[in-house]
């Protein structure tokens, strides 16, 4: 069984630039999560979907972050205007039991 895949694996930006992260969950998993994991901290939930519907995006900085899952399969997380404080690893996971992808390590200079 293929795991959760994410791309890109790394991204380096200047402040103000935009970036998109892509996630392909495990086939058949209806629930998909995006987490932000700053260095030396635990994963912090940003948003999660069931199928194509957003269930909880209360922790997503809505002025600059957006997430979609239009067909209930793959998902994209976008940062419109990155800040240095966004430097972190962005993890995608799918359920049941929160299988995590390898993450995208973002550095904002």
């Amino acid at each position, binding site marked *: 069984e293929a795991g959760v895949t994410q791309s890109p694996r790394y991204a380096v930006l200047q402040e103000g630039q935009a970036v998109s992260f892509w996630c392909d969950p495990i086939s058949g998993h209806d629930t998909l*999560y995006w987490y932000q994991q700053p260095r030396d901290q*635990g994963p*912090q939930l940003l948003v*999660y979907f*069931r199928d194509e519907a957003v269930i909880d995006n209360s922790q997503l900085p809505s002025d600059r972050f957006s997430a979609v899952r239009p067909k209930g399969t793959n998902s994209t997380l976008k940062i419109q205007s990155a800040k240095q404080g966004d430097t972190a690893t962005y993890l995608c996971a799918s*359920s049941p039991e929160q299988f995590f992808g390898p993450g995208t390590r973002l550095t904002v200079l």
Partner: protein
Amino acid sequence: GDSVTQTEGLVTLTEGLPVMLNCTYQSTYSPFLFWYVQHLNEAPKLLLKSFTDNKRPEHQGFHATLHKSSSSFHLQKSSAQLSDSALYYCALSDDTNAYKVIFGKGTHLHVLP
């Protein structure tokens, strides 16, 4: 709201000694507790999860017991191995929303030869 506390940021011990990593939680509803392990440059992986029937989950020599009276789910192993060196996260969901998982800050376990 729900929260998870891991009091130790770093635990260092010698190979062969027992391991105990602390986890306490606050939850208004019936909790489900998890332990995840994250090795260097890898994604977190589920290690253990609590059972609703109070059975003690075990995996790779690790075990944890959910004690609702003390709101704890400490991770234990009788004998540490070098390969156990990793970050360990305790996490929580509850029966009102089993899909929303809250993670603790993590404990870094460093096993010395």
